[in-house]
């Protein structure tokens, strides 16, 4: 039985964590993810979970503690944002290369500087090459659902990689909205027991974790990581299909909205996708053929599937909530253009930097993007391909 509730995105993720009842949480508070370990430590204090909560003195230590406990064989998680994720950088790569299926709730916030506490995706996008699976969430419901699915993906024997579940700081983390929760037992049964194949506390099979890797084997180990990441794609779909059976909610690698016959479309991530859907509906009511593709899974990047979904689109805007300083656009733009080029696409593509440092994204702003795409469609002239949305004069 679904439980009708109203929760902020942070509360929703904390409840998913309670229902999962992991072995260890190590965390250090940082805005806007602070509430997650705060709520969770209350669950620990009240005896609602039997998790060992490790209050560390920095995010560097938080991820180090996660690496240690996960390697020992304990199901482990943490939460962070912005500079907290940046301070974990070194250990993110270690967690991934040690094949430790840690789960991390990332509440997206701008990286300093200038110092700013509001939403953009520069934190998780900066970690995109660390070897973590990255799944993004439009709202509190998706943040909750994605977290419930996280361990089934990360711990799968064909994957065994750490996983990051991202949502927009403040915009969804601090907004109270309707949500449907699963019963505790449904989540517990869905997630299941953690039975790692190899772990440090296995006295029958001693092993070393994280030793020096020599040039003779380093590349082979990296290739194994890459294969595991590729494998994650199918596992993510399989887990989503099972999740749909208990929740009625359908998830894929990405979501398309009115894309089938769209001439002009955008690719977008997280909360602004909801705002953009309202813009699509407004323009559709005026007879304009517009649609969108919302990224759910950014790592592994579903390049072929995205190219296929966008094959009929004539003009496309990729929306990057993160600067890349490539003078061509942001990281999502680079991925999407690479996917389209490889597929031999002739779709015209512009990249928009938008919403960084918490700049508000309105329905009207997205309509403006579609307007610019129709200008390109009408004139055939693409103009500047690297643009800023809602920039002050």
């Amino acid at each position: 039985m679904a439980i009708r509730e109203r929760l902020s995105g942070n509360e929703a993720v904390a409840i998913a964590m309670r229902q999962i009842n992991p072995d260890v949480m190590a965390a250090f508070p940082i805005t806007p993810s602070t509430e997650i370990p705060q709520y969770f430590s209350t669950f620990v204090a009240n005896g609602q979970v039997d998790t060992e909560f490790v209050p560390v003195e920095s995010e560097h230590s938080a991820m180090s503690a996660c690496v240690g406990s996960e390697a020992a064989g304990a199901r482990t998680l943490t939460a962070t944002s912005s500079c907290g994720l940046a301070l974990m950088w070194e250990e993110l790569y270690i967690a991934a290369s040690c094949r430790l299926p840690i789960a991390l709730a990332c509440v997206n916030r701008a990286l300093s500087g200038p110092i700013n506490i509001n939403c953009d995706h520069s934190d998780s996008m900066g970690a995109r090459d660390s070897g973590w699976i990255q799944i993004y969430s439009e709202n509190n419901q998706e943040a909750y659902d994605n977290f419930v699915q996280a361990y089934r993906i990360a711990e799968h024997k064909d994957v065994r990689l750490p996983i990051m579940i991202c949502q927009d700081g403040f915009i969804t983390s601090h907004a109270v909205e309707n949500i449907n929760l699963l019963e505790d037992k449904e989540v517990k049964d869905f997630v299941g027991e953690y039975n790692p194949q190899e772990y440090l506390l296995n006295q029958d099979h001693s092993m070393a974790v994280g030793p020096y890797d020599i040039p003779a084997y380093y590349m082979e180990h990296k290739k194994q990581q890459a294969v595991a990441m590729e494998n994650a794609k199918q596992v993510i779909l399989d887990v989503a299909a099972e999740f749909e059976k208990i929740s009625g909610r359908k998830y894929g690698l990405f979501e398309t909205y009115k894309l089938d016959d769209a001439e002009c479309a955008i690719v977008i991530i997280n909360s602004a996708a909801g705002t953009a859907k309202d813009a699509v509906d407004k323009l559709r009511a005026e007879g304009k053929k517009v649609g969108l593709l919302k990224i759910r899974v950014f790592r592994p990047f579903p390049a072929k599937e995205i190219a296929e979904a966008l094959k009929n689109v004539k003009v496309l805007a990729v929306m990057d909530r993160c600067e890349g300083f490539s003078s061509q656009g942001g990281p999502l733009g680079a991925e999407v253009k690479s996917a389209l080029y490889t597929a031999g696409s002739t779709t015209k593509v512009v990249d928009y930097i938008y919403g960084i440092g918490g700049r508000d994204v309105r329905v009207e702003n997205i309509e403006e993007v579609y307007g610019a795409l129709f200008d390109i469609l009408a004139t055939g002239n693409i103009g500047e391909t690297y643009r800023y949305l809602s920039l002050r004069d």
Partner: protein
Amino acid sequence: MSNVLEIRWHGRGGQGAKTASLLLADVAFNTGKYVQGFPEYGPERMGAPITAYNRISDDPIRVHSNIYDPEFVVVVDETLLECVDVTKGLKKDGAIVINSAKTPDEIRPLLKGYEGRVYTVDARKISVAALGKYFPNSPMLAAIVKVTGIMDDESFLKEMEGSYKHKFASKPEVIEGNMNALRMSLQEVK
């Protein structure tokens, strides 16, 4: 989209405008609606102007922007009229509710020509009478519920009693005072 009721709150840090917006989301949720309650975050300090928002709808809400053209505005602190454009974008067929001892006719000249409905309620007087302290958010919450008509007085009071019992579980002595503040405000908003 068009059937979404949008409300904007103006307050000062520490007055509870954010809490009031979340409580309003709570009570609307309990009537079966889809809701959003969220503050606009920045480097807040006690006393600095803050903004919070509500959306209330019969259908799921997808938009995640701030609110620019609200149906209703609540001003939790009268001194904000001097420094914040509180009626900006406020729809003419909407209304503004201001915490003030003045009458609506006395306060209208301060509203930069706003032509819609103007309501006032003396949340300071009510709060001090009911709670012995100045917490304007409970009276302002009752006033906006009355003005918007999103639910009748009795259902509202019943919902709020439940919310306060939860919110003030560790200090139940303040529940009755807050309930009285709500009742007085429902009567006195004009």
